[in-house]
């Protein structure tokens, strides 16, 4: 599904900063992967590259068999819209759109009709028990509800891959556990789920963990058998 080959990322500054140093790994269909590592170790950077939001400085990324370095910016946008759902630590909902409109957004860019968008959004909100908050603004929701909204958004286009960057980082333990249950369900439904986490206890319940340190993979429990 996703293959990184000798991926490096260097930020060109006064003193160039190499954040990823020749990372190679492969994630198969319907894997549930946790990415661990200290702050600043390059987890988010790697996730952005895997999610085609960013391009590596060197090395290559294959997404579902396609070498993404050959794809245009527009192609990458389309792949993100169709195949990848993102969930972020600080939710990243658009504050002036309603919950339902936020969830619809990926379909808006896939040019789906209004009616179809609304129906799909309501279905996904139902799946995360938020149907009754559809017409509220994100600011009217609790943290857990906002993150469930973000998850609904990542599901609305039926993307096979969900990538989450510390989705529970801004939530209390109980709420965080609930969110993790949602991810587990997504995995059981057949999706590929990649989650960055600081919480070792959480990571231990996830089949595969990849540990980064200073831009290098130092531990990979490997594709689950």
């Amino acid at each position, binding site marked *: 599904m996703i293959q990184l080959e000798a991926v490096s990322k260097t930020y060109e500054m006064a003193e160039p900063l190499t954040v990823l140093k020749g990372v190679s790994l492969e994630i198969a269909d319907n894997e549930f992967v946790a990415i661990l590592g200290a702050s600043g170790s390059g987890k988010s950077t790697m996730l*952005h590259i895997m*999610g085609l*939001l*960013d391009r590596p400085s060197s090395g290559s990324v294959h997404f579902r068999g396609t070498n993404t370095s050959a794809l245009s*910016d*527009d192609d990458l*946008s*389309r792949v*993100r*819209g*169709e195949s990848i759902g*993102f969930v*972020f630590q600080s939710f*990243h*909902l*658009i504050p*002036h759109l309603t919950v339902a409109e936020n969830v619809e*957004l*990926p379909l*808006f*860019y*896939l*040019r789906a*009709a*209004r009616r179809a968008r609304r129906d799909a959004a309501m279905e996904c909100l139902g799946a995360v028990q938020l149907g009754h908050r559809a017409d509220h603004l994100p600011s009217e929701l609790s943290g857990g509800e906002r993150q469930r909204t973000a998850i609904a*958004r990542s599901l609305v*286009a039926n993307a096979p891959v969900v990538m989450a960057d510390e989705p529970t980082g801004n939530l209390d333990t109980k709420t965080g556990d609930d969110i993790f249950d949602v991810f587990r369900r997504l995995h059981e439904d057949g999706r590929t789920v990649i989650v960055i986490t600081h919480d070792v206890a959480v990571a231990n319940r996830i089949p595969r963990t990849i540990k980064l340190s200073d831009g290098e993979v130092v531990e990979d429990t490997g594709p689950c058998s």
Partner: protein
Amino acid sequence: MQLDWMIELVRDGLRNLVRHRVRSTLTLLGVVFGIASVTTMIAVGEGAQRTVLREIEALGLKNIIMDSVKPTEVETARAGQQTSRSILGYGITEVDARQIAAISPESSVSVAHRVNQKIYSEGARVDADVLGVAPQYFNLFGSELLAGMRLAEMHEMLRHTVAVVTPDVAASLRGIGGAVGKEIKIGPKYFRVIGVMSVPGRTAGGTVFLPYATARAMFGTSTYKWESGSFEATRTEIGRLVVHTEHEDAVPGLAQAVARVLEMNHQTEDVSVTVPLDVLRSKQRTQRVFNIVLITIAAISLFVGGIGIMNIMLAIVMERTREIGIRRAVGARKQDVFMQFLVETVTLSSVGGALGVILGIVMMPIAASWTGWESVLTPWAVIAALVVSWTVGVVFGTAPAIRAARLDPVDALRYE
């Protein structure tokens, strides 16, 4: 599909605009006033042009009109013509008429006799000019018979005491059965009104038309006036002379020839020459200058308004950097982001344009009463104003939209 999409972008744009009412309003002031003044000025300009055009065209663009005017005292004295007891002769003479007719054989020359007498109807004073004219005089001005009958050759030959009046004179001769058939008294003589004719052009006060021959025979060419102790006797052979050319192109050349004839025959400025075509040309020149000034003012105010919009939109792009990152993450392409912000700017400026047109319509009566011109709002002016406001949106929305589209998704998502 694409249209649906556009409509949604417009709707989102409107929503953002309403969400920040105060900011939007302040941003739009420049465009609103710019468009409002453009609309008002176009309307007033159009109205003024129409009024002037109507008046000039009424005088006949193929005509050259000469009127006898009394020269000023100073001029008369300089010319050494007048002594206190003699009669002051001034104005167009038979000689002038013959010579002018000779230089333009293909044009028709028509004379009018001006009668300086007061008019009464049933004892009440009627304020109007009195002109003795030949029947064909009316053909020169595209006049129209509204009631009764026209002046005819027969009236000339038989020196009939009949009159045709303009509608405003007819209105002041109110009575049973209208003006036709009424008697009016001009000086010491009685005339019967036989018709009402509209004669476009100088309608102020109205005119009473008599058969030329009748007027000459009854009132002669001399006028005697006693006023505040001084006696004045004047003599004018021809009150008005109209040269009617076959074609507008002949007018300028003929006007020069006429001017030469008059210059040779007259020492004083006792003939005023009106060339409607010249007046029209100069009015059109004035109009062009007016339009240039108008366009300049509009361009400046819209440029300033546009810069204001651009500034605000750049700030909005900054403010919504995270939103842009989110949209890119969920699949928006660069051009989707570009279109979103461009449409938002155009929506903003169009609202400004629409408000401007409305404000312009409100300002029109005020401007009209200040300038004394009627103002005419043509659909063309409204469309032009709206197109201009869209253009402002596109021109000044492009830079902010490009900036938004160029943002790197990851940087945008990180933006605090």
